[in-house]
């Protein structure tokens, strides 16, 4: 599965990726120029191995034309902001629009409030981000690439959702229409799936971050 990391510059996209793929974090990491790539496999509860190919993108506007080319093949997007910089959260809407313009309709999006270790500098409230995520039908989590909290969860959660979505879709497309999943139109399925996930995700994450 191809997943993209997007969001304003300096919110910690590259460190989220290095934490997830190499369990590394660097305060000295440089700005991403263009795109960078990394990969990792995880196993699902039912023993399936999911391989993620993750594209990390440059945050600056000038590079948008290049980075948006990578949205196209992506089935998932982690939209990252920095909980200690309000502007990076207010720009989330713009990033969602980018996704709507350039990505597949069914892309699974997760809003990620990174740098949750900076408790004393927090300016974006968890509730606000949660509400925003709910309104927009995307899931939400707060992470810290620095202390590694929720990083694994963020990636495995989006990968699992993608996996479920894809397997559901493929079952739907089976003419037989198996009893396990209620057959439904593709576009309807997206909305419902996302909303459900959202409700589930919210309480779990709340206790972690505050």
């Amino acid at each position, binding site marked *: 599965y191809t997943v993209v990391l997007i969001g304003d510059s300096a919110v910690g996209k590259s460190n989220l990726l290095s934490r997830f793929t190499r369990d590394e974090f660097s305060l000295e990491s440089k700005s991403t120029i263009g795109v960078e790539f990394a990969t990792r496999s995880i196993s699902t509860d039912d023993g399936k191995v999911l391989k993620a190919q993750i594209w990390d993108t440059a945050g600056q506007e000038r590079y948008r*034309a*290049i980075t948006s080319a990578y949205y196209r093949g992506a089935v998932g997007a982690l939209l990252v902001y920095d909980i200690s910089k*309000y502007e990076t959260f207010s720009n989330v809407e713009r990033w969602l629009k980018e996704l709507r313009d350039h990505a597949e309709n069914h892309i699974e999006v997760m809003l990620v409030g990174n740098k949750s270790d900076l408790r004393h500098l927090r300016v974006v409230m968890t509730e606000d981000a949660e509400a925003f995520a709910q309104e927009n039908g995307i899931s939400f989590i707060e992470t810290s690439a620095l202390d590694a909290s929720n990083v694994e969860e963020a990636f495995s959660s989006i990968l699992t959702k993608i996996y479920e979505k894809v397997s559901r879709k493929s079952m739907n497309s089976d003419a037989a229409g198996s009893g396990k999943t209620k057959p439904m139109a593709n576009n309807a399925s997206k909305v419902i799936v996302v909303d459900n996930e959202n409700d589930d995700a919210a309480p779990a994450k709340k206790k972690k971050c505050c």
Partner: protein
Amino acid sequence: MDGKGSVCSGDVGSGGMGSASMLASVFARLARGEVEPGPLVDVAPATEQGAGTGVETGEKAVDVGEVGGARSAPSTRKTRSVRRQHWSVPMHPPGVVRVVPAALCPRPAAADSPQAADASQAADASQAADASQAADAPQVADTPQAVVAPQVPQVPQTDEGEVDSPRSSRPVKITLHELPPEALPSALLDMSKARNQKFDALLSAPIIDLEALRALAWSGVPAVLRPQVWALLLGYAPSRADRRVGVLARKRREYVDAANTLLEAPFGSVEDAIMTQIRKDLPRTEQSLAIFRAERIQSALERILFTWAVRNPASGYVQGMNDLAATLFVTFLVPQLAIAVNDPHHQTALLLQLEDLSELNEAQLALVEADSYWCFSKMLDSIHDNFIVNLPGIYRNLDKLERLLGAMNPRLASHLAESGISMMLFAFRWMTCFLVREFPLPLAVRLWDTYVAESAFNDFHVYVCGALLLHFVDDLLEASAEELIMFLQDLPTATWTETDIEELLSKAYVAHSLYASKVGP
């Protein structure tokens, strides 16, 4: 001054002692290690006024129309406390350095400026400057003023309690110092080497033979001479010795004034966005090198990038420019560091790891800053379309690299193509940062000797990229698509030496000779 003072050049007496020639001998002794690199002695006879106000004609100086309006509008943005950084810039002899408290010192009158043509612009700008200087007055009123450059490093000052919008968090103020003489770094040159003698002979000519210098520089420039050689080859320093001192003094002054004006003027949304992005990137520029963690260096780079970006609105600031500016800055800084720590046998890599920069005085640092700015500006002139909207220069280079690779090694080219790996995936950063990210910084600087010697930065670089791919051809041919990207975005060059770089350059040279006509512009 000691760095606390908010000062500018003006017309209050310097108490000037010393002369240019005496100064030169002090520096010569300093360079030989006979005296401590303490405070710079001050100034020449009072024959010239301090700062001009001219910002180079034809370049965007400051949007004067916006000054009044933007200033009066109180910000409703989210607030945060900000740092105001006072900084100083040396002037070349024989310019007099005179210092007064800012409150007493309006910007130098435009009439004093050699660029009187800019008078109206300058006058407008100085009105804005006056106002902000007045506002700063209480802070500086009791600061002792001296004409001597600070011995203690100037630490950026915090305006205690100042709460302002992000847009106004910017450095201010200029101080003028005496400059170290031009020739100083070459005192560190080991003249027993024939190659160094050649450089010395070329550089001491009344009119420097730039083509000969290019040819010599192509194969590498001694670190202590790089500032001079790069400044000449990039077209910043004039080749005529009799004009050089004057022109450089004027350019440095111009930079100081431009930076000062822009930093003091109220920020509009454009300036605000530029500064915000620069401040996101500088703390993650070459942080593995201790000197880049120093606040003084960060502030200097911030001023360089901001000044350039605001004056070049077609591109503004684009990520990656920080790497380019840092590379130039290091180049100009290294000889001054060697002087500061009094180590003629310095090693660049060690100097870059200096934690304590207190031996580096303000005059040296300001010289480095002004010269780095102009060379950055010259360099960017030739590669500007790498950074404008849609980045046409980058794409042109990527296409060219693809054609080149096809010509150099069709097998590798098709392996990449079949694996779905376009040039864009790995070489985008190569094209943007001119391989600074791919090599340890001292090696990148060596690589750039050749780029500077090749007059077009963009052209030869593509051949170097081609040679770089071929250097790893065996690894690449065996790699799968994923391995290819991972390998190419993190090349195993940490153990490279200058010899490896030189081999790479010779291969690039051969490739250029063989394929340039085939590959095209």
